[in-house]
């Protein structure tokens, strides 16, 4: 579908540029804002992949929670002169990044993926729910553990940050 292709390309370019802005910008706050933009474009990409529930979850969790959290953290840890400078290891990091990219490209392009062409169009929410909560081949245990994980994270964060 041509519309889907155009949407994909636009979203792809914007997300890559936003990510680059996050890592290359000097001003931390602006970098955080570009991060939010990146999250939004990723949500758009989920839509092109017919993952409607996930798109919604992405916006809620990442943009709504994580993005706000990061902005709070930036404000609480403001270092006036510093901002976001480059580290000592930028050259090796660049090389490694490029090397990784080339490797992955090589893998992706040379693997014979078994692809199903048709588009699943039904809303995915019930399918996800089925997969999560059904009897033997469900992910109920992981679900419960994830809940416990969240609890632990909350308590941990509170413990770390409270004033003595």
């Amino acid at each position: 579908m041509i519309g889907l292709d155009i949407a994909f390309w636009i979203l792809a370019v914007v997300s890559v540029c936003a990510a680059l802005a996050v890592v290359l910008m000097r001003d931390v706050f602006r970098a955080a804002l570009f991060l939010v933009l990146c999250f939004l474009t990723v949500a758009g990409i989920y839509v092109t992949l017919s993952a409607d529930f996930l798109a919604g979850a992405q916006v809620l969790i990442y943009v709504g929670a994580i993005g706000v959290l990061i902005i709070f953290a930036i404000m609480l840890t403001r270092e006036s002169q510093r901002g976001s400078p480059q580290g000592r290891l930028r050259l090796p990091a660049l090389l490694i990044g490029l090397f990784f990219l080339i490797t992955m490209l090589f893998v992706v392009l040379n693997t014979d993926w078994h692809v199903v062409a048709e588009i699943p169009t039904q809303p995915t929410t019930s399918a996800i729910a089925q997969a999560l909560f059904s009897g033997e081949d469900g992910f109920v245990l992981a679900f419960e553990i994830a809940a416990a994980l969240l609890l632990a994270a909350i308590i941990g964060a509170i413990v770390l940050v409270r004033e003595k």
Partner: protein
Amino acid sequence: MSTGVIFAIILLPLFSFLVISFVLRPFFKHRPQLSWYTTIGAIGTSLALSIWTFIEVSAAEGHVLAMPDYEWLAIGDTVINIGVTVDALAAVMLIVVTVVSLMVQFYSRGYMHGDGGYIRYFAFMSLFTASMLGLVLADNLVFLFLFWEGVGLCSYLLIGFWFHKPEAARAAMKAFVVTRLGDFGFLVAILLLYAKTGTFDIGELQHLALAGTLGGAVLTWAAIGVFSGAIGKSAQFPLHTWLPDAMEGPTPVSALIHAATMVAAGVYLVARMFPVFASDATAITTVAVIGGFTAIFAATMGLVMNDIKRVLAYSTISQLGYMMLGLGVVGMAVASGTISTEHGLALGVAVGIFHLFTHAFFKALLFLGAGSVSHATGTFDMRMMGGLRKAMPWTYLMFLIASLSLAGIWPLAGFWSKEGILTHAWEQVPLLFALGFITVFLTAFYMFRVIFLTFYGEYRGKAHLHESPLVMLLPMGILTILAVIAGLIGVNEFLGGHSYGFFEALTHPLAWASLCLAGAGIFLAYAIYGAKWLSAASLRQRFAPIYTLLSHKYWFDELYENLFLMRLLINGIFGWLHWIDDHIIDGAVNGIATVTVMGGSLIRRLETGQLQAYGMAIFIGILAIVAFLLIFS
């Protein structure tokens, strides 16, 4: 006759040593005489057993008693036995060792009376006697080498007996190190023989040598190695320098060890291994040549010494040379086929050991006499003596008889044994005979020089002169009797030599010639030192260069100690090795440590503590694994 009896001969003095060292010395220090009684008891019993053995051997067929071997060590395929050989040679040696040892122990009671190390002295004397007896009885080279080292050790301990004197300590060290050079050759020879034949047993080695299985270069080198041990122990040229210095020890020690027994061990070794030597012309010629040369070489140095014991020491070296010469020339005859093997082997042993037998008695007696003289005058320097024959008549008489025996005057013991050697030398190798013949003159001269300087003329010293006590004179007396009759009791024939009639011997032209020569030597000594027709001082001046050469002992001590030892070895090679050890070997070890530390200080820069560096390292690792998998699958 069981093996137990034979082993008892060795074990009794050894047991005496142990008792004195571990029981008497700690607990009975207040009664030193006990150590003397123990020693006398042990050696006396050994003497009795030796005499019994001698009787058994002479009654046995072929003069051999068969004795079984006991297995001692088995290391893999190598087996070392303990065993004894009891044949004519061993029986004679047993008698020599036990008789002289016992006489010396009796004498020592008087000589060492009141000495602080009395108990220690008899402990070492017992140990020495045990080692020497073991040496003459051993039937395989390992066992023999064990006792060989034992006598060397006791020699060291007894030369350095008065170790507070630096000269004595140095002399002991010198003796040990110089003989060690010879012992090294001996050990190499033992190992070489074992490597080629697989046995240490002397009897087997003899058979192999005679059969020709063991031959060629191996045999030559092995025989020369064994002989080098003999050169060391018997103070032959070039390892002769230790014996004159060994006179620092007590005089009875010199009498027993450095006259009669230990130095004779070298001669005994050649005699015991005679078939091996006689099978190789090169080796046996070496024996003869070194023997003959040493005889005249040492005699020349004995001419100018002022210390009685030094003269006697050089005399001993010279006479040992005679013994080697005797063994050598007969061996050369066997090797070249002039004499039949069967006859020649026994003959060679007889010629050499007969002189060892007679020499033991009169040389020990001479040393004991010198000790008696020093007991009275307090010195060994002949320039401080003179006219002692009035104050010490018995000592004089016995010393005179021993000197005549040494000079080879008929019918005393020395005549018979020396004539045996000279006769065979004349028949085989006239050149060596000439050396030995001239030495007859020199021997007579230097001995009677000693006699005239010591016992005649006016007394030049200051001590109060007296004769020695009976406990010292009696053993000397017994040795005197032996010095007279030892040639006539048939030991020569017992060992397998020719016999000469009592008066018939005088009819040989050679006998006449040597008697005349000896007489000439005595006469010349009388002329210079007795009647003083010629002045010794003016002779010394006229022959000054020769005198200097002789009195400095041909500068051999300087050669060995200054040139070899100090310059070449200690400063040269050993200094090098020390440098290598310090800088290269230690340097390598230190270098490894330094490199490790430097490497560590380089590598620790990776530990930055920074998160991102660690993260990078992890990611590089992951990428490397992925790339590897991609490329190689």
